[in-house]
């Protein structure tokens, strides 16, 4: 297949430019992807820190409230009376004082006073009174110091609650009981659902040490306290190691995530966002690159034609002159049209034509001389051939006469021989 030079030039230019654009785009995409991922990780970490800080402050405040309550003179006296069986109203007044001002009741489920044997002796919820909590981890842990136990199932209210409990001590510093408040997770849920910086697909949620999702999920709104998640980043987080990750989420979507260990509530705070959303700006570049390729293609096509014709036109003239020379026309005039390689080629062709002319004229003289020589030789040969022919004819005649003579002699011999 013959491809003319102008097409070859256009294809070459197109290929080089388009391949360059594609390579630059790929390099840009890869680098931008890394930069985006780093930026996302920083953002996820910042959101996680903010929410973590909020939960810390929230729980610290709740701890402060309950510890302040126990330390307050009047309340402490009431609690000691209740625990020592001296209360005339089952601690109603004391618990009322706590819930009427000292403790934030917006997310309070109940507030209970538990004696040293684990028996609830007074509670803001009368149905709690008489229950025994001696085997509960929070009872054991709060004998010495305030304890926070998160996401414990409460049969009575059918919800998971956080229990903050603090020891009650008598004037001699002896442990005599516990003040325990159960709070629902409304505030923590709200903190998790706050969407600042999370775009459309981002979310934060908590998973406890049993791998149970304990706050709502964006893609499975009804999954709290039902769904379990076991993935390497989460397993590592629940072992106390915060980590960034890139993998499929509980819904099967590829995400960037940050799993942050939260020792205060022994849970892992997951902050994650879909990769598809993160890479939308980058993916938007693809049509732009495609448009650029098309524009460059058309542009280089036009340029190719222009530059091609600039190169091809003088070459075409030279080609036509060469054809004329081939046909024997040595009288044409070749003049270089440009001072470049094509001009050099024209000069060379011109010189070649001159040489060819010289050679041609020399050749004509030599042919004439040679022809004359040949004619002379021919004449000489003809003369020589004429003499030779006469001699031959004489020789042949003599031979014929000899044969006739011999035949006559033979006839005569036959006639005189005896019969």
């Amino acid at each position, binding site marked *: 297949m013959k491809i003319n030079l102008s097409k070859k030039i256009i294809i070459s230019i197109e290929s080089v430019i388009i391949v360059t654009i594609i390579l630059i785009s790929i390099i840009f995409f890869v680098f931008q992807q890394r930069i985006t991922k780093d930026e996302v990780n920083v953002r996820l970490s910042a959101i996680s820190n903010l929410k973590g800080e909020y939960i810390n402050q929230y729980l610290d405040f709740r701890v402060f409230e309950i510890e302040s309550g126990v330390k307050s003179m009047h309340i402490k006296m009431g609690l000691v009376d209740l625990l020592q069986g001296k209360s005339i109203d089952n601690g109603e007044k004391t618990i009322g004082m706590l819930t009427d001002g000292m403790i934030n009741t917006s997310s309070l489920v109940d507030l209970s006073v538990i004696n040293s044997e*684990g028996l609830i002796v007074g509670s803001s919820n*009368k*149905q709690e*009174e*008489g*229950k*025994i*909590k*001696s*085997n509960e981890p929070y009872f054991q842990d709060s004998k010495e110091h305030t304890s926070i136990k998160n*996401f*414990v*199932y409460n*049969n*009575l209210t*059918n919800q*998971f609650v956080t229990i903050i409990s603090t020891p009650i001590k008598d004037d001699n510093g002896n442990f005599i009981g516990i003040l325990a408040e159960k709070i629902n997770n409304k505030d923590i849920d709200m903190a998790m659902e706050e969407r600042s910086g999370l775009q459309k697909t981002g979310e934060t949620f908590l998973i*406890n040490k*049993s*791998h*149970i999702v*304990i706050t709502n999920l964006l893609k499975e709104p009804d*999954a709290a*306290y*039902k*769904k*379990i*998640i*076991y*993935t*390497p980043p989460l397993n590592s987080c629940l072992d106390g190691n915060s980590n960034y990750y890139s993998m499929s989420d509980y819904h099967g979507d590829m995400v960037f995530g940050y799993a942050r260990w939260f020792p205060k509530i022994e849970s892992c705070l997951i902050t994650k966002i879909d990769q598809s959303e993160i890479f939308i700006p980058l993916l938007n570049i693809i049509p732009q690159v495609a448009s650029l390729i098309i524009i460059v293609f058309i542009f280089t096509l036009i340029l190719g034609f222009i530059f091609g014709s600039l190169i091809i036109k003088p070459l075409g003239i030279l080609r036509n002159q060469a054809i004329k020379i081939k046909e024997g026309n040595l009288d044409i005039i070749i003049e270089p049209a440009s001072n470049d390689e094509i001009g050099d080629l024209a000069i060379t062709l011109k010189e070649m034509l001159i040489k060819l002319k010289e050679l041609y004229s020399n050749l004509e003289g030599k042919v004439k001389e040679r022809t004359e020589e040949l004619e002379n030789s021919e004449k000489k040969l003809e003369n020589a051939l004429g003499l030779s022919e006469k001699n031959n004819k004489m020789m042949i005649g003599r031979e014929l006469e000899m044969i006739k003579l011999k035949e006559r002699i033979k006839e005569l011999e036959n006639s005189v021989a005896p019969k």
Partner: protein
Amino acid sequence: MKKIIVIFVVGIVVISAAVWFFYFRLQTNKNIIPTQEVTLSLKWLHQAQFTGNYVAVEKGFYKEQGLKVNLVPYDFKNTSIDSVVNGKADFGIAGADELLLAREKGAPIKAIAVIYKTNPVVAYSLKKSGIIKPQDFIGKTVGIEKGVNVEYLYNAMMDKLKIDRSKIKEVAVGYDAKELLDGSVDVSTGYIINEPNIVKETGQEINTMLVSDYGVNMYADVIFTTENLINTNPDLVGRFLAASLEGWQYSIENGKEAVDLTLKYATNSSLVHQQNMLSESIPLINDGSSPVGWMELSQWEQAYNILLEQKILSKPVNIKDAFTMQFLSNYYLNKNI
């Protein structure tokens, strides 16, 4: 040049065919795991108490583990422990108390997981009665389901609370809440997943008092098998447990569908009753403190102590031999979802 192209194309085709062939074989092998038939003896009749197992059958979790599982309900002759010990079943579901009692008698069985971590035994009253705690039973008539663990767990609770029972009239009741509904008792006892729901289904509001809230907890349903099977075929035990736990986890996450599947077995029950049973069961199974099925030594010790205190057990039993964490640990260690 042409020759090189032909060799290249043929090479690609051969490699693709080989990859496809091995992939197909791998996929096929996955599907042709030989199915092993095993029997699970249930503690009671078909009901939402065993939803996890029904789901594991119906959703193919057992099949994925190469198992065909027959679910056999209680026949009022042989307990699940009898069936397993006699070799009629490979696995069983029973209370921790039943298992400890069986071990006391020398039965070589072990628990491999717990389903009901919180015991469902409950005292319940009509809301309008104002009886909200056991201390309120004084001067009232309390109905007790005699001869089952409800009785001694109730006794244990009352002992723990040091309530003077001479001031309470205690009578025997059946399993259908009839006595509370007809007013012959002020308080009745039973399982929170069953009898109180019967009352609620009549439109009446109730107060419930779980014995576990009063310091008396005992694992209710545990999955068990023989020591022999554990020792000789631990792989089978592991696969059975994995599928059972998957069935329960699925039921927790998809309660409505789980109830629909349960009704394929509990054919004589109503949708509402099974729904209530499952919704009451799930908090007792999935309490957030540990993964589904997970057992704690302290809980086994508590059960043991209750049985000793109530003189249900007459001689010591080595608690650590009554259960194994081998299969649960393995299951959760290798889990990746």
